[in-house]
């Protein structure tokens, strides 16, 4: 007879004390992971560390693949299901920055500590936690640290794995460092691109006026802000970063602007992408500058329904732990699962501040609750409470 869902919920408090005792191991892994720089496309050293740990925790099939993912399998007692536990290993932070981590009572601070060193440390440490808690899963648990997730990485790592694995995945749980309570089971449509402006050397400044690349980019930005955005489907355009110019005395001849257009509707995303390309072409035509748009990533909207057992279970577990679920769509690994019609959720582990800033930090105490949540969710999937046909 399978364990009832209420029994799973009721078992979570009993794990709390032991999980807290094991948090030292988790923190040690967190520090060692966070101090290895891993900008997207340069995750090799972090991947090697993850692999070494998975090997040490005696997972099976510990291996890497062509995309640079690191994975290992904790075999289940029955092995009829395969649960994928995922954390992206890459960060948006260059290796040249100081990745030193500081631990003081209450919190851990350092570059990328929340996004996503804590997520990686969690998936790496979880097999050990399961062993220490004497939890034996019926399902196989596949632990994977993915490479090439962020920015131009365009979730290539997890896509590569899903495109090439022969293992049927029953459900996937994506782990992010923050924020505890975060729950994503749908992906929003998204197009991510870079607009580049180059003013040619033979540019006729008397004809087109002064200003250079920044002025031209400003024109593009003004036109993007004029794009009418519908309230339904909800849509938005975010300008993420801009680079141009070197200082006084130099007219900037090059500029780049990174943007994301997001919408609940796939059609709207395509439309916004096309509109931005048209704006770039039009501004180029009347300024004489070369303005190009490169699309670097795209996601189709989708996901499991609010009433899907996996989503329901995830909410029940959070409520049981007195954490208010914060449901929001995601553009991360979740999209890759949605494309493959694999039920998946993204959860957060702790609270934190200053994401992707030099003083990024996470709080230590909530991690215990975050791990209880993760255990509950794994057990719920393991015992069949998250199957789509129930």
């Amino acid at each position, binding site marked *: 007879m399978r364990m009832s869902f209420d029994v799973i919920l009721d078992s979570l408090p009993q794990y709390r004390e032991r999980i807290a005792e094991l948090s*030292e*191991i988790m*923190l*040690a892994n967190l*520090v*060692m992971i966070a*101090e290895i720089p891993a900008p997207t496309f340069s995750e090799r050293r972090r991947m090697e560390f993850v692999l070494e740990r998975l090997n040490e925790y005696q997972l099976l099939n510990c291996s890497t693949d062509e995309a640079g993912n690191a994975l290992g399998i904790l075999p289940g007692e029955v092995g009829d299901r395969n649960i994928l536990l995922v954390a992206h290993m890459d960060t948006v932070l260059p*290796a*040249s*920055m*100081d990745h*030193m*981590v*500081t*631990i*003081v*009572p209450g919190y851990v601070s350092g570059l990328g500590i929340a996004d996503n060193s804590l997520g990686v440390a969690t998936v790496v440490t979880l097999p050990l936690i399961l062993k220490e808690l004497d939890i034996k899963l019926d399902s196989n648990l596949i632990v994977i640290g993915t490479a090439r997730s962020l920015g131009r990485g365009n979730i290539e790592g997890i896509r590569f794995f899903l495109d090439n694995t022969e293992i049927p995945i029953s459900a996937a749980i994506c782990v992010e460092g923050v924020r505890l309570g975060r729950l994503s089971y749908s992906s929003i449509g998204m197009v991510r691109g870079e607009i580049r402006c180059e003013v040619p050397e033979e540019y006729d400044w008397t004809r087109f006026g002064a200003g250079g690349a920044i002025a031209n980019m400003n024109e593009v930005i003004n036109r993007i802000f004029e794009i009418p955005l519908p309230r339904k489907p909800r849509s938005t355009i975010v300008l993420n970063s801009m680079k141009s110019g070197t200082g006084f005395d130099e007219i900037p001849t090059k500029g780049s602007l990174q943007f994301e257009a997001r919408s609940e509707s796939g059609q709207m995303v395509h439309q916004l992408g096309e509109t931005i390309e048209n704006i770039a072409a039009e501004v180029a035509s009347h300024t004489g500058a070369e303005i190009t748009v490169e699309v670097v990533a795209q996601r189709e909207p989708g996901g499991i329904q609010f009433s899907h057992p996996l989503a329901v279970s995830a909410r029940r577990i959070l409520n049981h732990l007195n954490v208010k679920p914060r449901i929001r769509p995601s553009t991360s690994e979740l999209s890759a699962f949605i494309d493959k019609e694999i039920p998946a959720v993204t959860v957060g582990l702790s609270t934190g501040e200053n994401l992707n800033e030099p003083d990024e930090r996470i709080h230590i105490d909530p991690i215990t609750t975050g791990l209880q949540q993760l255990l509950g969710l794994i057990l719920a999937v393991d015992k069949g409470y998250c199957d789509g046909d129930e």
Partner: protein
Amino acid sequence: MEMNKWLKSNTYHHSTFRDLAELVEKKQELGITISLCIPTLNEQKTIGKEVVIFRSELMQRYPLVDEIAVIDSGSTDQTLEIASNFGADTYLASDILPEIEPKRGKGENLWKAIYQLKGDIIVYIDADIKNIHPRFVYGLVGPLIHRPEIKYVKAFYDRPLAFSQGTRPSGGGRVTEILIRPLFSLFFPELSAIIQPLSGEYAVRREVLESIPFPIGYGVETSHLLDVYTRWGLSAFAQTDLDQRVHRNQPTRSLGKMSFGIIQTFFSRLSKMNVIGNVPELNTVLRQFQVHDQEFETVEFKIVEEERPPMIEIPAYRDRVASGPTEAV
């Protein structure tokens, strides 16, 4: 022992000892205990991480280390609170052997650790290491566990200096290259094979530690090398490459003070060993210069390299040893 032969047989890389399960098994077979001592003075930024990593990896997961103690010189920041919060045993150096008038200096903390800690081997690790990793400990105790004839294991590094844009892969060790290695080459050529004679990380057997004197200031590492070498020879040493150590870079003026203290220790040893005959009484004031309102002015620092006697000569220690070697104090 021929220097090249020693370099080949007694120089290790930490990865040789990375199989911690095997190392622990061997340690248990030998029935020995290992203590880790972290001397501190205002190290709140790095001490938490150091304690968490060592406790987790070397006590919880693999019981290689039997105790972790922070011995503090009187920090005015949160060093002791943080260390204690994450599970280290914490001591104020002045509270250990209170009947002996306290002195301030890193060597004092290292010396008092011999009394306070229980291990048959004591590993000393500085607290200012930014890229701390379990290899700093297992790399040093490995040779002691595997080779009974080795008594003293010293760390060496490819030392990057921390600077604002990350790290660069070489540099550091200025005092070593400008002062120590030339001195060793002049008087004790074999010791010049020790790649990083001033590194603050080493693992030593208790019977050695308790029988050598401890300068309390800058000269402690140098005096250890000279004393152990004189008594047991080069073959008692091993050294382990711990890869990189990221730490604070010291300004040249501070290195001047360090060199002044080391030279005092060195010459007093030379004199005791009758290597250069009688040395006149050495001056203890270092003079450096600074420019103030376009005038040069002298800045004087009094640096006296005081020395603690071998711990075995301290009655309280002998009593403790007599009452049982593994008795916690």
